[in-house]
């Protein structure tokens, strides 16, 4: 389970190349994180706009471009969650929030989609980083801002929760 690329790859990579190479990863991560494809599309665009502004800060020696883009995406997603929370709190007084039909990707069973939807965003993001994007524990931990051990613990808990949900459904 490794996502390390050669250093020369990162050093020579321009922003356009990084965007082209990791667009699907960022989009997938945000889709799983937000459990809403339309929101993920918007956030992906915002992520790359912000990444373009911050590209001078990217240091290939400290991590891959994919890890760095995921960090930017996570910041964007957290801003979105905060604003959504405020908006939901405001609107709940007037009307019930819209139900979102989560779709996490092609090739997943309906039970698994349902089980994924029942996970919290925090649990889904660690599964997305470690399983979907295949990041190693160190890189995923760097994105999440936690230790590698904590990251592994969170992954195990999330997978166990998924497993239990699937077993119950079966």
């Amino acid at each position, binding site marked *: 389970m490794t996502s390390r690329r050669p250093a020369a790859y990162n050093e020579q990579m321009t922003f356009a190349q990084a965007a082209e190479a990791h667009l699907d990863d960022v989009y997938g991560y945000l889709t799983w994180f937000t459990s809403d494809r339309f929101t993920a599309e918007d956030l992906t665009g915002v992520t790359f706009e912000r990444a373009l502004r911050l590209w001078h800060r990217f240091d290939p020696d400290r991590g891959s471009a994919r890890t760095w883009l995921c960090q930017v995406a996570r910041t964007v997603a957290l801003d979105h969650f905060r604003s959504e929370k405020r908006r939901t709190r405001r609107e709940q007084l007037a009307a019930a929030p819209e139900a979102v039909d989560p779709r996490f990707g092609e090739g*997943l069973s309906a039970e*698994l989609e349902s089980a994924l939807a029942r996970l919290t965003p925090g649990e889904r993001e660690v599964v997305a980083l470690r*399983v979907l994007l295949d990041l190693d524990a160190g890189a995923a931990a760097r994105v999440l801002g936690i230790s590698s051990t904590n990251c592994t613990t969170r992954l195990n808990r999330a997978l166990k929760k998924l497993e239990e949900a699937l077993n119950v459904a079966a």
Partner: protein
Amino acid sequence: MSQRDLVAELRAAHLTAPPGLRERVRLISVEGQPAPRRITWRRALAVAVPVAAAVAATIVFTRPTHQANRDQALERLAPATVHGSAASVPAPTERAAKAFTVPTAPDRAQQVGATLGLRVATAGAVSDAVKRALAITASLGGYPLSVHAQSHGKTAAAMLTLKVPRTHVSEAITRLSALGSIRQEHVDVTDKQAGLNTTDRLIARLQRQLTTLRAQPTTATTTAQIAALVARIEQLQRGEAATRRATHYATIQLSVATPQPTVATHHGHGRLHGVVIALTWLGIGAVYALAIGVPVLLVLAAAWFAVRMVRRRREDALLG
């Protein structure tokens, strides 16, 4: 379903960005590649720290020390006092030009005081200067009030209190200042004429009162008043005479001394002495920086940890 199967199924999920999003990101990326920032704070720090150290070292190296000042003073002094003989005394015109001129008015009663500190090279020169000072005083019609001299090894010092007629005080200071290098000079002129005029007017008034009393019939009361007035007038006249005598002579405090012996360890310094001084100052600076910086850093670290913890808790609550 086992966890291994679960992971395999999750990895099999295929998620591709829609074409619209891909085009949008492509447009974002072709908008322009931002130029990398050439001056980062690390680079600035890497330049600033050595430059600051170099500036500090330059200041320390080029700063004239107290020892150097003393050496320079001795070098200036040495040619004027070769062998300490009377013949080696610097030319009066050269030295006297530095002496104060005393602004006196001969028609007014003024109290003049002067302090003159001279430095000569050797103990023998101190002795010669004392002799010449006494001769100068006598030639101007003055007299020495006190003379104190002492010597210890190669150092010597003398303190003279000279009384010189006020009309010759400027000449006296000029000639005395030529006996050595002037290290200290102070002139004090106090006008006493106004006080004397007041006393004169008071005496005249008292004398008029006395004349009036003497014209009256003699009684016990008038006799006592006359005696008191006479005593008062005599007291005032004595005081006035004393003041006039004091203003007739100026008091000159003359001190002549050799310089303090220099510390012989100066020439024992090696070539690295300046480097040692620079390192010492850098060490002192580092100690101060640590003493001030460590508590500040601890507070900042504690604040950073607190902020981080709060942010993480909020994040967990948001994503939980």
